[in-house]
């Protein structure tokens, strides 16, 4: 396996681990952790897309020439995605606090006020 393959493998594994946690766990907080793991996996995948072997960071300097830097666009995308992920996680946790206050449980099997 080449070195880039390791990154892709790792990224897809993280996405699947996150998805598994979301689909099977009953505790709300574990589901949210799964969501975060999934986001991390996606970010790693994006970074790997822009990876160039033996290249340096895309910062203007004496060493960095157009031919030996990694692709900067995925890094900008990941930066944005991380910020969005933080916002979603913060909101999700505060809603989870609200849910806990109303239902006195974090078990999704017991949070069933809305039916029909």
């Amino acid at each position: 396996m080449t070195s880039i393959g390791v990154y892709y493998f790792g990224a897809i594994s993280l996405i699947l681990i996150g998805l598994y946690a979301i689909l099977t766990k009953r505790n709300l907080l574990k589901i949210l952790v799964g969501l975060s793991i999934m986001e991390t996996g996606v970010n790693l995948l994006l970074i790997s897309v822009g990876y160039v072997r033996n290249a340096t960071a895309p910062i203007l300097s004496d060493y960095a020439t157009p031919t030996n830097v990694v692709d900067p666009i995925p890094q900008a995308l990941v930066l944005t995605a991380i910020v969005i992920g933080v916002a979603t996680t913060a909101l999700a946790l505060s809603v989870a606090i609200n849910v806990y206050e109303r239902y006195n449980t974090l078990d999704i099997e017991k949070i069933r006020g809305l039916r029909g």
Partner: protein
Amino acid sequence: MTQYASLLIALPLISAFFVPILKKISKKAIMPYLTLITLIQTIIAALVFRDVYTTGNPIIIMAGGFRPPVGINLYIGHFASLFALIIALVSFLMAVFSMRAINIEPKDKYAMLFLLLMLGATGMIATGDIFNLFVFMEITAISAYALTAYNKDAHASEASMKYIILGGIGSSFFLVGVALIYGSLGTLNLADIAQKASLIDPTVAQVALALLIFGLAVEGELFPLNAWAPDAYQAAPHPITTLFSAFVVKASLYAIARIVYLLSSVETWQNILNLLIILGTLTVVIGELSALRQANVKRMIAYSSIAQVGLIAVGFGLGTQAGIDASVFHMVNHAIVKALLFLAVGYVALELGGAEFEKFRGLGKRMPLTAFAITVGAVSVIGIPLFNVFWSKIKLLLAALVAGKTFVVALILGASLVEAVYYIKLIHVMWFFESEKGEENIVLGIIMTLLIAIIVLIGIYPDSLWHFIQEAGRDIFDKAAYIKNVPLLEVVK
């Protein structure tokens, strides 16, 4: 000078961040401020609409003056200008409704999130960059999560939680799709992607498109990912429910259609269309059957709304110009009708303290105008002639016949039949029972009358609107024109 169209994005964004300052000055001014901003937005959108339709050319705005694909561009074509107007108009009407419907603090947060929701949906239909689309989608989603939880009771928190989890999965799927497309084409600009579409490996394109569709399907309420929708519709504040149904869904559906049709030259494209038809069909069937057995009217209309969304997706999946035209027409009609229905039902729920079927008993005596509005909306959704949805359903039917998809015809007719069952049950409950007389709000009465007038006008003279719809449909279908209109810079590799 057409650069003022960027105000469609800039105005709600700037205004949203002025709300905390305004709160320090006067708390009473927040709701009128929200109404004023949405009114200004409506005026700007109307000017943009007039400009685009009189010149026939889309307005391209390049952020920072950098030419795409280096810079990010906005593409305000026929579809985007038509829908920006509908978004702004519905927002304005719902801002007026909010003055009455929102009685719990913090109203400043409500106004801020309301503006951000409007901004996100406008951005989704106006952007010309796939990652920018993701950012606007997340702005819409995060403000929608927060607004769903706004009432802070048990149901609102639960609904918001479901929405956040599904939305999180959806946004991850979308980003993986973006990563696949960027990895194979090295560009994020939609026009550039369309231009290079033949270079992408067909299998990769198929997987990427499927992931993008699944990502957008959360907001777009397509079947496997729409479990949040009825709960959120039921638990969210009444004006917000209207916004969800009228344009948040439509913005995502448009994004799906835009991305799918820009990549129409890949070999595996037909599979993607089939995927859209399958998802749409399942959405219609499950939505209509669930609507049948609801005890809460707001939830019932939510399911009906989901079913209509399925019909729109099926129209996009036909892969013909006629199918897109019909879908766009259905989107516009559905936005108007559902705005009226959710407004009227929300008003009743507000006055009588709930939206259960018993509350609607004898509504024709108690609130005659509201009951009449619900009746017109219901009759229109069923697809009775002289009302607007009839025309979009018939166009969809004809488009399906021409495309040779006979089962879609059966689907539309069957859906209309099921709709008739549960809507006529509602009409029966409203008009054939006695109850005491009641009062009605005049401002809301005027808004409802206005919407009823639009529904009947389109129902009697569909041709005047049909002309605009066809232009908007061509905007989505004609990808050669889309590529030509964006002044792409040649990037040397």
